[in-house]
């Protein structure tokens, strides 16, 4: 019983927190330098893990897809298989999970440490609103970075290193067929939905991360707990949201 009330309390607090972040977004947008800094730490610093994971996920998909498709003589459709799976599902979801582990945990730890070392109350006493100065830029950066990272993940998985390298260069699928089948079966709506999913996941992960950091107990134990629960709660939220979004986009 207390678990449920605790959860509801947390949800309520998190919603009010989100409202105050949204209220602070205009003034954060007026300070592009802070935003660019955060885009760098949240986005650029996550690039390596996204690029490498994207390549491997694409390569595995190509191997597995080829084994099944070749029995039906449909190995030429390998491109479509990889592209549809990546763009519709794995791209946004895996990117978001990696993003939660790399950027979300770092955000929560950073903000939690700022709280534990009185930096946030220090700002308040200097008449600087930490929501505007610290939280909002990080939230917006996460929101912008996630769709971009997810597209980079998809490009790595489908074309540059993953599926193309294995399917075309190693297993001998025809290069022209690989691309032309992707071209004819992957629609604009798929990419749009993929971007929508990524943006929603980005918002969710950033929201959870800044909330956990800002409401962490101001001790080293509190910071470590905030980091852990950011990753756990984000992962659950991503998978649940993915189901909901997919159900709505299904037609």
């Amino acid at each position, binding site marked *: 019983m207390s678990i449920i009330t605790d959860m509801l309390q947390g949800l309520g607090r998190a919603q009010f927190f989100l409202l105050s972040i949204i209220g602070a977004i205009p003034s954060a947008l007026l300070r592009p330098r802070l935003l660019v800094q955060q885009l760098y730490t949240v986005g650029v610093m996550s690039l390596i893990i996204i690029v490498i994971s994207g390549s491997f996920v694409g390569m595995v998909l190509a191997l597995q897809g080829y084994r099944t498709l070749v029995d039906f003589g449909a190995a030429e459709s390998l491109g479509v298989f990889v592209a549809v799976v990546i763009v519709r599902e794995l791209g946004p979801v895996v990117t978001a999970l990696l993003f939660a582990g790399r950027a979300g945990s770092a955000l929560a730890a950073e903000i939690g440490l*700022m709280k534990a*070392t*009185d930096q946030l*109350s*220090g700002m*308040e*006493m*200097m*008449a600087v609103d930490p929501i505007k100065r610290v939280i909002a830029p990080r939230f917006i950066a996460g929101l912008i970075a996630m769709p971009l990272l997810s597209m980079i993940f998809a490009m790595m998985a489908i074309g540059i290193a993953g599926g193309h390298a294995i399917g075309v260069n190693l297993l001998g699928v025809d290069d022209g067929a690989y691309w032309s089948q992707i071209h004819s079966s992957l629609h604009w709506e798929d990419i749009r939905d993929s971007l929508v999913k990524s943006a929603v996941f980005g918002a969710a992960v950033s929201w959870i991360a800044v909330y956990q950091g800002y409401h962490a107990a101001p001790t080293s134990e509190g910071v470590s707990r905030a980091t852990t629960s950011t990753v756990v709660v984000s992962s659950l939220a991503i998978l649940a949201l993915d189901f909901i979004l997919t159900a709505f986009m299904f037609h």
Partner: protein
Amino acid sequence: MTTSVSDDAALVRVRGLRFSHGPRVIYDGVDVDIPRGKVTAIMGPSGTGKTTLLRIIGGQWQPAAGTVEFDGVNVHTLRRKALYELRKRMGMLFQNGALLTDLSVFENVAFPMREHTDLPESMIRDLVLMKLEAVGLRGARDLFPSQLSGGMSRRVGLARAIALDPDLVMYDEPFTGQDPISMGVLMRLIRSLNDALGLTSIVVSHDVEEVLSISDYAYVIASGKVLASGTPDSIRNSDSPYVQQFLRGEPDGPVAFHYKAAAYADDLMNKGKKA
């Protein structure tokens, strides 16, 4: 630099303050006056909420009852914007400086100026160097907080606290964990900055001798009440046994050495039974 609205002798006036942390009562009707232009010490054992008092004066926490007036304005009835305006007239030095770890010493001191003023870069540079010179750390301007010792961090925090030329500076345990030299430096700085800049200072501490030697007025607060107040000399000569125990650091007295327990003999006789 004091821009006083009223000619009141007290810059901060606390009346009937009540505050509790959950079930724990921190303040149970406390009256404190912080005289203008003076250094006032707030002393008391750990956990009596000395820091809490500073946060209440700064408007970060709301009292359960009572009023806090800063220069004639009730801090806790202000709307957020007016409160932030008021806070520009207060500087606070946190226990460990609370420097922003991703900014250099120079940028930390420049931070309040950049946030609140439109001064040109050259003027900000001059002002920051002046503030850093006042705390003796002009040469450390390019260091980062992780490269500073505890005492240096506090001095940078102090330079930042006076960056906007406030009326009031609040020091939260400035001497804790300092070696004698940096303690001496901080003591001299608190006194000399107060007199040179015409500030009003509140020093929260339990380093009794040090803080009494630099203050003009002192309060001893314990278990939610003001136990003694007056000039340092009158505090030293106070006839309250508690204050005497606190000043001399005696292990037993009104604050007992033993935590509340059943009688010793009874406890030993009741073998195996849970008390």
